[in-house]
């Protein structure tokens, strides 16, 4: 399972994608993904907000994830 990283998320992780091997390691919901990355990279806890996009749409915590989805970490946006 590949997770796309943008903006400060990319800086925190130090690379533009994050990889979870299928099976035990991979998060099964948006909420689980948020928890996993916040545990591994505590800097995420300091952000104003943290959203996850599944197939390029904002996804709520209960949404399930699978390896075919395009998943992205969306740190606080600041366009304009």
């Amino acid at each position, binding site marked *: 399972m590949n997770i*796309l990283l*943008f*903006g*400060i998320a990319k*800086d925190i992780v130090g690379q533009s994608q994050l990889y979870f091997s299928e099976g035990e390691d991979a998060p099964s919901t948006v909420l689980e993904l948020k928890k996993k990355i916040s545990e591994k990279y505590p800097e995420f806890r*300091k*952000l*104003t907000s943290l959203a996850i*996009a599944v197939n*390029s*749409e*904002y996804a709520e915590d209960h949404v399930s994830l699978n390896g075919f989805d395009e998943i*992205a970490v*969306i*740190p*606080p*946006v*600041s*366009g*304009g």
Partner: protein
Amino acid sequence: MQNKIIEIVDSINTSQVFSELSDAQSGGICVFIGTVREFTQGEAVVSLEFETYKKMALKEMDKIAVEATEKWNLNKVIIRHAVGLKVIEDPVVVVGASSAHRDACFEACRYLIDSLKETVPIWKKERFENKQVWVSAHP
């Protein structure tokens, strides 16, 4: 509505915006342009760098344009955002709308920029002399 322009570009040409929004049924065109300003809270900005999740950003921009045309009676709508390195006075975003009467285009224009800043996955890094900061990342 087919009369909408939704784009992410490397650089914005401000001279074409009014002709893009002009329409025989419109009596008013309202446009907002966001530009890079020299100082943020008293500190001199050297440059801004914009990054986007393009596929999703275009979807979110499109949603905003559709919402605006549902709320107001608009003839044309534009949402165009630039990415990459920008320096002082560079235009970074253009939003605008045309409508028969001016109320609709003013209100829609404000709605477009406010919504864009809330939901569209675009990120801005401010570069100062001695540091760089992802805007809005931290409380």
